[in-house]
């Protein structure tokens, strides 16, 4: 049974991408490789977040807390208990999943905006703890991940081995997520998103399924956090702050929430946008305003506005549409309406805002 895109033509971008990723560390500078690693990690974070956002139609503002928790789990285990590296790396997603279970269990009782605000509150509680429990977490001074606690080939930042390590793990994680999203469970989640009342009355226990999605999402967010800790060699309370979660939401929407790979694209766009803006504006602002400003907020904000108003399908959605138009014009018959979801990308049209979960009295 073919699990990927249907036609061989659709495999091309995937293979091309893989090829580029493999060649990258030998072609790009060290700094760019580090940046690319960051993109890859955030791609995982964003795609796992999209399991809730695009596939379930749930907006969580506390997801950064799961990411940060994963990172802190790894850092704390390595720093305070001298645990073996692999154990710490496994613990990160496990704790992410556990925290997601608790957060989701409570949050899913609430409807719409209250769900979002609750996740915000819980996320901020977690951030406060990380920030203020200085004796345990070092608080604002950040907690270092010693290079000695990481096995040799991947212990130096910017090394090719570290890059491939991260890429390999993220690729495996994304494959698992892809399978989940295309499974019966994934289809059922989408049905829940479309119409929870109806889903309830085809025999689907809606709240339980949403909780499972939450836990899976938390698992991979925690993994991303752990990888981030390894990548950066430190963790900081900002990893749990709601703004980071908002940025991941931004990445997902920019890239396109109705596509599996949309958020990954969004992650790449945001990270690279931020990086290129670093170089462009400081000179200009220094000349005209007398101070050095990166203006990344302005750029990112403008991108957000443009996408919100003009490109609700996100950049990924636009690309997909363009590709379809191109293949149709080239005379090929395009995809005959397939029975089942559209080719490769199960999420069809823009996700509808989450409807309230059934109130069980």
């Amino acid at each position, binding site marked *: *049974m*073919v*699990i990927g895109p249907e036609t061989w033509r659709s495999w091309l971008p995937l293979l091309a991408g893989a090829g580029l990723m493999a060649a990258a560390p030998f072609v790009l500078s060290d700094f760019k490789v580090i940046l690319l690693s960051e993109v890859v990690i955030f791609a995982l974070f964003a795609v796992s977040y999209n399991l809730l956002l695009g596939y379930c139609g749930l907006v969580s503002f506390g997801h950064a807390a799961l990411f940060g928790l994963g990172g802190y789990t790894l850092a704390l285990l390595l720093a305070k208990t001298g645990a073996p590296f692999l154990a710490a790396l496994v613990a990160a997603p496990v704790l992410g999943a556990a925290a997601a279970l608790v957060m989701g269990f409570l949050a899913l009782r609430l409807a719409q905006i209250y769900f979002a605000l609750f996740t915000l509150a819980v996320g901020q509680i977690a951030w406060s703890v990380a920030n203020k429990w200085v004796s345990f977490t070092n608080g604002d001074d950040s907690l270092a991940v010693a290079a000695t606690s990481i096995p040799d080939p991947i212990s130096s930042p910017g090394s090719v081995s570290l890059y491939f390590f991260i890429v390999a793990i993220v690729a495996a994680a994304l494959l*698992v997520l892809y*399978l*989940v999203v*295309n*499974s*019966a*469970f*994934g*289809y*059922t989640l*989408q*049905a829940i998103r*479309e*119409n929870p*009342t*109806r*889903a*309830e*009355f*085809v*025999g*689907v*226990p*809606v709240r339980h*399924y949403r909780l499972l999605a939450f836990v899976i999402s938390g698992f991979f967010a925690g993994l991303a956090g752990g990888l981030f800790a390894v990548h950066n060699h430190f963790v900081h309370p900002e990893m749990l702050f709601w703004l980071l979660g908002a940025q991941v939401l931004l990445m997902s929407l920019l890239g396109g929430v109705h596509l599996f790979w949309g958020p990954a694209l969004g992650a790449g766009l945001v990270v690279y946008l931020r990086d290129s803006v670093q170089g462009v504006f400081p000179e200009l602002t220094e000349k005209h305003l007398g101070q050095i400003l990166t203006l990344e907020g302005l750029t990112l904000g403008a991108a957000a506005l443009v996408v919100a108003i003009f490109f609700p399908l996100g950049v990924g959605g636009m690309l997909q549409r363009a590709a379809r138009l191109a293949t149709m014009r080239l005379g090929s018959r395009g995809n*005959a*309406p*397939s*029975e*089942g*979801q*559209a080719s490769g990308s199960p999420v*069809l*049209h823009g*996700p*509808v805002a989450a409807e309230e979960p*059934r109130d*069980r*009295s």
Partner: protein
Amino acid sequence: MDPAGETILKTEGLKKHFGGVRAVDGVDFSLREGEIGSIIGPNGAGKTSFFNLLTGHVPPDSGTVFFKGEPITRLSPHQICKRGIGRSFQRINIFSSLTVFANVQVAVLSQQGKSLNLFSPARNLVRRETLQILESVGLNELAGHTAASLSHGDQKRVELAIALANNPDLLLLDEPTAGMSPQETASSIDLIERVTRERGLTLLFTEHDMDMVFSISQTVTVMHQGRIIASGTPQGVRGNENVQRVYLGETV
């Protein structure tokens, strides 16, 4: 038509008040297996509320609902669905962004207990059963179309298909021909009657449109302000004075 069997659905003293409104005010109802029953009444009579009580979408204030002899009163909708009740809703309630095929497929997956399958690709799962259902309601041509793009009448057929996908013993249809043209109504009635007969279902529907009521319904129950005011054969009900008074001005 086959002679009706044992009681499949029964309610005793079912009550639901919303604030000051007595939506369902002490309803004793029963339906036998294999029967085709209908509930009629003016708007606000309590028909949809009654259905909501049956399917667990709304908990009753008092009273009991029995299905196949077992009480199902406080079960959640998804549990009730699993016991063998299928339902369509008054306003179209389908999975709009998904394809017609997927709409039914999700229901079949749930029916077969396969929804929790996390890793096997679902695209071609339960294909045969799904196509079978689509064929029985005449939607196989439209299988790949997005549900939202369909006409109103076709969307109602999707709704019916979803209800059938759960292999129900009892089918509850809430105003199945609402908003349809006379031709659509006629073909809808044919379809529903055929499907019911082929699968040996028990059918209970609510309606405004009397055509459907008089062409296929064996028993008619009339509700008014949350209560049953008459019940019996279509002809018997038509001749009932109370009913005529309630429907003053409407052709019964």
